[in-house]
């Protein structure tokens, strides 16, 4: 099954079995097996990081951090979920942690003019600018973007997003609405 097939149709049971076997070998320290898992899932990890971070450099750093964390925490994968599912959630958590720990930027702190207010109203584009959905998502404020990507792009449910982000469900719904409204405004231009 090709990568495109796996994206469109989901992984076949054979692929899932193979991933599970590779994961078990990697748990025993087989770096070659881990590398094969990397080559299978790297593009998925990249996509989630790019959409959440909306910044190529940060996405690259987060993706690397996610893989390192996956290696370190392989023992916590018990086989009850598909390896790709486990890895996807781990990647999301790595990115969200990076937002929270403010390693690179301060979130939601107005200070000295040297930090970005990631919840500021988005900068409207000039009338007539063509913009596609990916670019529009990247221009959302971080909080709205996070919820939109997790819910509407990646398919997580509200309770799952609430658990990952620590936000109350009411806040999530408001952020999601805000994201959808802003996107419609951007895409209407």
């Amino acid at each position, binding site marked *: 099954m090709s*990568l495109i097939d796996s*994206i469109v149709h989901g992984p076949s049971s054979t692929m899932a079995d193979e991933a599970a076997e590779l994961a078990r070998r*990697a*748990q*025993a*320290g*087989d*770096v*070659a097996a*881990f*590398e094969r898992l*990397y*080559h299978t899932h*790297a*593009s*998925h*990890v*990249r*996509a989630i990081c*790019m*959409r959440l971070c909306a910044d190529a450099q940060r996405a*690259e750093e987060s*993706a*690397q951090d996610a*893989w*390192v964390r996956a*290696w*370190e*925490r*392989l*023992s916590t994968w018990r086989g009850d979920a598909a390896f790709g599912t486990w890895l996807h959630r781990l990647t999301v958590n790595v990115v969200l942690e990076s937002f929270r720990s403010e390693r690179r930027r301060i979130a939601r702190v107005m200070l000295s003019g040297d930090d970005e207010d990631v919840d500021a109203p988005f900068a409207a584009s000039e009338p007539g600018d063509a913009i596609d*959905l*990916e670019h529009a*998502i990247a221009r959302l404020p971080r909080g709205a973007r996070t919820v*939109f990507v997790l*819910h*509407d*792009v990646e*398919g997580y449910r*509200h309770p799952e997003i609430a658990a990952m982000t620590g936000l109350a469900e009411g806040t999530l*719904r*408001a952020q*999601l*609405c805000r994201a*959808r*409204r802003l*996107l*419609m405004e951007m*895409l209407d231009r």
Partner: protein
Amino acid sequence: MTHHLDDQTLSDLLDDGLDATARAAAEEHFAVCDACFTRMQRMRMLVASAAALPRAMPAPAGEWQRIRSRLHPAGPRGASEPWWTRRSALLAAGLALVIASSGVTALLVRGERNVAVQQPAPAVTAAALTPRLAALEHEYATVTKDLERQLAERKHALAPETVIAVERSLRTIEGAIAEAREALARDPGSETLARLLVAGHDQKVELLRRATRLVTQS
């Protein structure tokens, strides 16, 4: 008609977040309000488009090498087998180490074949490592070279005592790496030496990464 449904209501309706009463009221409203119905459809199309976005994006070239240099060679935490029975990434079955020096027979060790091969003299005195170990060292060299370049560009922003501390530690680590590499050339089957060599590289990368972060975060 001046009354319209707000976006939060539309958004919640889309996610089945309204109770039966509110949902029925919204459906009744759509029957008499083209504007709200149209907006609902647009929101629905937006969500459908988002769900159809590709789940994959190409990873940048060289990413695996950068990740590999950060993985601890002792394996993931909690691996069930004792470390010495795990297959080593560096010295997996089939690897061979060739020692070449003037007039010395080269041996293939630990491989599927045990064959003595005559090497032509004069040979290089420096030891050639296993292909995989050499490849790993090359990956480390790529990563450290990039970090060293970043550090050199920004060194002026570091306090003088920090520069001295970093350079002193780098010399220590590089000395240890050189010793481990030379010893590995003499004892090619030593997994301990391979691990020590990799640990040295890890320490160097970590030190350079930390020093570079000191500048970029200041």
